[in-house]
Structures are given as structure tokens and as C-alpha cells.
């Protein structure tokens, strides 16, 4: 029955695409909030610490306001993260069934970190009225530690999908033995985890700073705005050079361990030494069109010598080549480009600060900071596109293809459409709520309730 077979094949291909789009969309939404969950606490506690140390009311009020904003972003992040937990099973039941006993271990640990983070986040956020000074500050510290631990657990699970190890399969492909530590400390964890962790600090730092840059561009040049810009921006700018170093290491590791992904993201068609680095352009079977070529640079970056042999797509079996090479290539370039631009922004700030103990006075600096938040988010998304699309057609590199993992359930495109509507409303609601909060603060609504001041009225 060829027609039926063809129909089933088409249906399963369509399911695969729908499931991948749905996963990508929901993950892309969640990851921005996850960055805030991981890194916002450290930014808030920095302001809190400055406030307590120097008796700085403005810094304390910033910490208090930010914690209120974080209460909302964390709530939305908690539910969008739960959706992802469901999706592992709903979209990829065959993957979880076969590899849950290995892949799941990291998540079991993540569960503890997330639990403790949720508990202390609540204590910290709702402790402003009645917990005092340093006791309150310390109640927030577990959020920072658990944020890092949680990021490690989730990202190491993803690292395992890229470089799986720590399990034994029987003839039927079923996992019969596991080595949990090998799973947790797989060969990709040591660059994926720091890369994402630093990305979280960059996204949170530039995002918060960009809000205050917009305010300053609108003429709100008070001290609160200056501090609100400087604290998160300084943290993000310190992290950026480290991130570029880690990212450079990550790219080399990928060249070594996931040559198909590397070849696709760099548009390398033929294996060989002296590979050209292409900046921008469109990938085709006959090479890159419309790119800026830099001869030899790619080999140099991979092995510190232009003689370094880099694997091209010609040495990857056709059915194991990643799709959408142009998307991968441009995503990679965009990520690197934004990272470099943000490094420049940090250098600008550092230079002017060194000379004048002040932020650069030109509006162009504020404009640059104002777009830095969105730029950091775009870089984050691009990085995940490279990681995830670049791993295709595998869900577990070398062991399970994504098409084998996908659900047979119908209606995934409808679910996708529904989720896009739901998350659009959710994102719009989140932005509206945060804007309304900031408007109320501008009108001085919370000035009456000075942090740790005389006990004000019981009314919240």
C-alpha cells in the first residue's frame, strides 16, 4: 500500500517538524526567563549589599523593586519550565522511554536546586517588610547558589545529548546499565555549562541595564537610574570577556567532538587544511555565497595553525548532516558578532570610567546600552540554535535520531498554534505588568515604605 505508507511518512515528518518547532518556541521563551532566574538574584543582592554596606537608600530601594519584578518573572519562568518538563514526554516519548534513566539523572538533581531556589526566593521577596537587614540579605544568598546549581544540572543534561556517555545498551538498544557520574560529567559539560551560566549573567545584566538606559534617554537622570544602569551593566561587562574565552574553547571542542555541527555552522564543504573563515553569507553545496572570506583563519582558530585539518561535510554521511546550514552559520556569526560588540561596549565603559569616574556622557552610549539587552537575548537564542539544530538529525548524538523519538500523537501543529497564542499573551502580559510596576514606582508609590524603615501601615 504505497499511498498509505507515503501518507504515514508524511504525517510523521510533519509531526517531527511540528514537535521541533514547538520545542524550540517554548524553550526560546523559557530560556530568557531562566536567565533571569539564574542571574537576577546576584544582581539584586549586589544592590542590596551596597545598600547595607554604605547605608545607601537608593541601592536598597532598587534591590526591593527588582525583587518585586523578579517575583513576576520567576513565576512565569516556573510555569514555562513546567511546560518543558511535560513536553519531554508529550513530544519525545520514545526518547524519554529509552534514555530517561540516563538523561533524567541530571534533572533529578536539578529538582533539588529548583526547590531550594523557589523556597528562598519566596522568603527573600516577601521578607522586605519583616526580616531585618543582613538576615534578609543572607536569606537571598541561597538563590544565587541554587541558580548556578540548577543551570549546571539542566545544561549538563543537554551536554549529555551532545556527547552522550555513561550507559550500556543491549542488542535491542535498551539501556541496561548506567554510570551516573559519567552521565553528569560528560565530555561537553565543562564548556556548555559555563557558556550558558555566563550567558545568563550577560542576558540578565544587559537586560536590566537596558531598561534604565531607556529611562535615562527619556531624561530621567536621577541617581536611582544611574545606579540601576551601573550595577547590572558592570556585572554583565565583567562577564563578557570571560564568555568570549569560554565560547572560543567551546567552538574548538565542537570541532573536535561534533565535526558535523562544526562543518555546518562554518559552511565547510571539503575536509582539509587552510580552511577559510566565512563571515556571513549563504551556505550552498558549492560553498558560501556572499560572505566575507578570511583565508586560513578557520584552521587557525581550530588548531592555532593554518595547517590544521578541519572536517568538511563531504566526510559526513548525507543522512547525518545537520539541516539548515545557512541558519546555523548565520546564527553562529550573529552570536559571535553580538558578543564582540558587547565586549566593545564594556571596554568603552571601562575606559571612560577609568578616566573620569563616570559613565560616557554621549547619548550614543545610552542608546547602545538600551539595545544591549535585546542583543544579548538574540545572541542567546542564536547560540541555542547552533547547539540544537546543529545536533540534528540526532536527539542523542550517535544513538537516537530525532525522528525515532517523536510522538505519534496527532494535532501537534494545532498545539503549536495554541501555544504561540498562549505565550504571546503571556509575554505581552508580563511586559505590561512590569511596565505598570515601573510606572507606579516612578509615581513614587513605594517611597513611603522605605526598606527597613519604621514599620509602616500593615496594608501591602
Amino acid at each position: 500500500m504505497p499511498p498509505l505508507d507515503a501518507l504515514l511518512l508524511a504525517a510523521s515528518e510533519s509531526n517531527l517538524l511540528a514537535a521541533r518547532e514547538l520545542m524550540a518556541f517554548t524553550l526560546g521563551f523559557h530560556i530568557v526567563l531562566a536567565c533571569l532566574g539564574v542571574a537576577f538574584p546576584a544582581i539584586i543582592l549586589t544592590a542590596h549589599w551596597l545598600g547595607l554596606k554604605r547605608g545607601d537608600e537608593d541601592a536598597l530601594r532598587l534591590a526591593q523593586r527588582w525583587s518585586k519584578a523578579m517575583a513576576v518573572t520567576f513565576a512565569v519562568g516556573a510555569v514555562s519550565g513546567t511546560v518543558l518538563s511535560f513536553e519531554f514526554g508529550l513530544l519525545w516519548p520514545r526518547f524519554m522511554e529509552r534514555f530517561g534513566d540516563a538523561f533524567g539523572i541530571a534533572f533529578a538533581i536539578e529538582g533539588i536546586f529548583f526547590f531550594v531556589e523557589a523556597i528562598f526566593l519566596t522568603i527573600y521577596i516577601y521578607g522586605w517588610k519583616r526580616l531585618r537587614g543582613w538576615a534578609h540579605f543572607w536569606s537571598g544568598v541561597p538563590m544565587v547558589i541554587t541558580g548556578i546549581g540548577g543551570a549546571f544540572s539542566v545544561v549538563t543534561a543537554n551536554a549529555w545529548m551532545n556527547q552522550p556517555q555513561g550507559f550500556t545498551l543491549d542488542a535491542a538498544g535498551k539501556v541496561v546499565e548506567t554510570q551516573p557520574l559519567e552521565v553528569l560529567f560528560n565530555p561537553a559539560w565543562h564548556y556548555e555549562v559555563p557558556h550558558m551560566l555566563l550567558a545568563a549573567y550577560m542576558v540578565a545584566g544587559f537586560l536590566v541595564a537596558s531598561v534604565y538606559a531607556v529611562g535615562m534617554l527619556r531624561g530621567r537622570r536621577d541617581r536611582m537610574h544611574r545606579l540601576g544602569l551601573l550595577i547590572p551593566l558592570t556585572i554583565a561587562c565583567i562577564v563578557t570577556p570571560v564568555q568570549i574565552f569560554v565560547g572560543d574553547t567551546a567552538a574548538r571542542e565542537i570541532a573536535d567532538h561534533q565535526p558535523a555541527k562544526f562543518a555546518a555552522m562554518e559552511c565547510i564543504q571539503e575536509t582539509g587544511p587552510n580552511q577559510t573563515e566565512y563571515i556571513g553569507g549563504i551556505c550552498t553545496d558549492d560553498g558560501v555565497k556572499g560572505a566575507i572570506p578570511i583565508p586560513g583563519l578557520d584552521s587557525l582558530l581550530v588548531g592555532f595553525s593554518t595547517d590544521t585539518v578541519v572536517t568538511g561535510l563531504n566526510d559526513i554521511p548525507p543522512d547525518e548532516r545537520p539541516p539548515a546550514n545557512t541558519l546555523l552559520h548565520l546564527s553562529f556569526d550573529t552570536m559571535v558578532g553580538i558578543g564582540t560588540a558587547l565586549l566593545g561596549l564594556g571596554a568603552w565603559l571601562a575606559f571612560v570610567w577609568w578616566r573620569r569616574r563616570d559613565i560616557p556622557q554621549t547619548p550614543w552610549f545610552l542608546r547602545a546600552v538600551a539595545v544591549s539587552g535585546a542583543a544579548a537575548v538574540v545572541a542567546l537564542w542564536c547560540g541555542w540554535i547552533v547547539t540544537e539544530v546543529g545536533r540534528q538529525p540526532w536527539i542523542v548524538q550517535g544513538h537516537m535520531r530525532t525522528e525515532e523519538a517523536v510522538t505519534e500523537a496527532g494535532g501537534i501543529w494545532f498545539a503549536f498554534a495554541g501555544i504561540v497564542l498562549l505565550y504571546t499573551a503571556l509575554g505581552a502580559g508580563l511586559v505590561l505588568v512590569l511596565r505598570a510596576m515601573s510606572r507606579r514606582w516612578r509615581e513614587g508609590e513605594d517611597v513611603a515604605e522605605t526598606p527597613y524603615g519604621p514599620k509602616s501601615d500593615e496594608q501591602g
Partner: protein
Amino acid sequence: MGRRAMSKADACAAILWTGATLYAVFGGADFGGGLWDLIAGGAEKGERPRARIQRSLTPVWEANHVWLIFILVVLWTAFPEAFGALMSTLYVPLALAAVGIVLRGAGFAFRKSIESLPARRAMGAAFAISSVLTPFFMGAVVGAVADGSVPAEGNGDAFSTWLAPLPLLTGALFVATGAYLAAVFLVVDSRRDADEEMEGYFARRAIAAGLAAGALALAGIFVLHADANYAYDRLLDEGLPLVVLSALCGLGILVQLLRGARRGLRPLAIGAVVAVIWGWGVAQFPYLLPTSLTIGESAAPGPTLDSVLIVFGIAAIVVLPSLGLLYWLSQKELVGE
């Protein structure tokens, strides 16, 4: 556990059930708060009960929600085959529950942070309606499992597996149980704040919800019997002490509420629910998916189970005291808006 020594897989199943119990009690009560919010009446009439519910829920709902993540993680790590079978069969109610979780959490968080009345109403409605639908779909999933409708190899029918008497009844039971727990907790919270009006308000609702939950549980036993379900025989045999315990707790609380006494309300309410959940566990033992997949058959390899046990040990040392601290602080009103 008598004749058979408890295996690692059994221990992991017990951990799963412990997570489910804590989620049912604390998460369930938070959903129940949403139900009382939903039917509290217009903006003016419902203002006081809604404020009471919000005050009680705000500091704890997110921590309570994490038990759900815990359940999912333990299930997919320790019992991956059961997880795959469940997810590829009951994806309709599970997806609807996931959507409900998003609307519930976002609605609640947004409502507190906005001021315009129409927007608050819309957010409140999202929170309250999804607080009813989410536990209903979760209950339907549990009911379908207990009904023996989930095949071990997965891909069971997407609708007939849960659009059946027992799953639908279990869904309703979940809603009623959450409402009952919430009302009892709110009675105690109102009493602590010396708010007699709200105390009486929620006491009346606790009685109504308790009777509804009891009636649904009884009906469930009859449906089990009519289906000649595997779980029926075991429930009224090995599980009988737990059934009796649950009934006694339920009666005890009814007597206390009718007398206007407040002593032991929370432990009794929790006891009634815990006994039902463990009764369900005992009734379908040793199956994870009656009668197609046992705990042992679906268990992950030993080292993975060890990891789950270790993680749970750490959780018991780290998470439970932290949770205790949070509950203590919120009961002392040291955290709050």
C-alpha cells in the same frame, strides 16, 4: 511490607508516591484556593475571601508547585517506560493540565501586580478557572492509570482511555479534595488572624467540600467494583486499613467543624487525603500501570535508582527543612506582602 523484601525499585516507587502525596496535599490546597476564589461572587462580595486566599497562597504556591516537577523527574528517571507509556497515551489531559498550570501561575502572579479592575478580573478568572480544570485533568490521568487503561507499550487511545467513568470521577474527586483541604487550611489561617467572619465562611465550605469529596470517593469504590478492576480487590483487602483511616479522619473533621471546634483540623484533613493516596498505591501494587507494567519491569538500571535514592536523601536533608522554614515564616507572617 511482609513477605517480599523491598527492592530499590519499590523504594523509588515509594518516593514517587511521597512526592505525589505532598503535591496532592499542598499543591492540591492551592488549586482549591483557586476554586473558592472562582465562586466567591462579585468584586465587592468576594473581596474579603479573595484577599484571605491570596494572603495564604502568595508565599507558598511556587514552592508547592515544585512537587509536580519532582514527580515528573522521578517518574522519567526511575520508571522511563511508564513515563513514555503515560505520556504517549494520556497526552490530551496532560497537555490540558500543562496549559492550566501556565494560566494558573501567570494569572495569579499578574493579578497581584496590576491595578486596573478589568485586568485584575481577567487575570483572576484565568487563575481561578484553571485552578479547577488543572486538578481535574490530573485526576483524570490518575484515574485512567488506576483503571488499567494505559498499555505498557504506550500509544493507547487518546480519548477512550480517560473519557470513562473512573477517570472522570477521579478528576472530580481531585477538585473536591483540593477545595476541601483549602477550606480547612483557610479556616485555620482565618482563626490565627482572629477573623471570625472568614473562619465561619470557610468552615461552611469545608463541610460542603468534605461531603462532596467523601461521596465521590465512595462512588469511586463502586465504579471500581462495577469495572471488576484489579485495584478493587486489593483496595478492600490490603488497602482496607487505609480506607478506614481516611473515612475516620473525614468523619472526625466533620464532627469538629460542626461543633465549631478547631483542634486538629489540619492533621485530620491531611490524614484523610494521605490515606486515600496510599490506599490507591497499595491497591495497584505491584503495578505501576495496572495490569500491564509492574514497578520492577519498568525500573531503570540499579545505579540510576541509587541516584534517585541519594537525591531524595539530599532532598530530605535540604529541601524539607527549607520548606519547614518557609511554612513557619509564613505562618508567623514574617514573610508576606
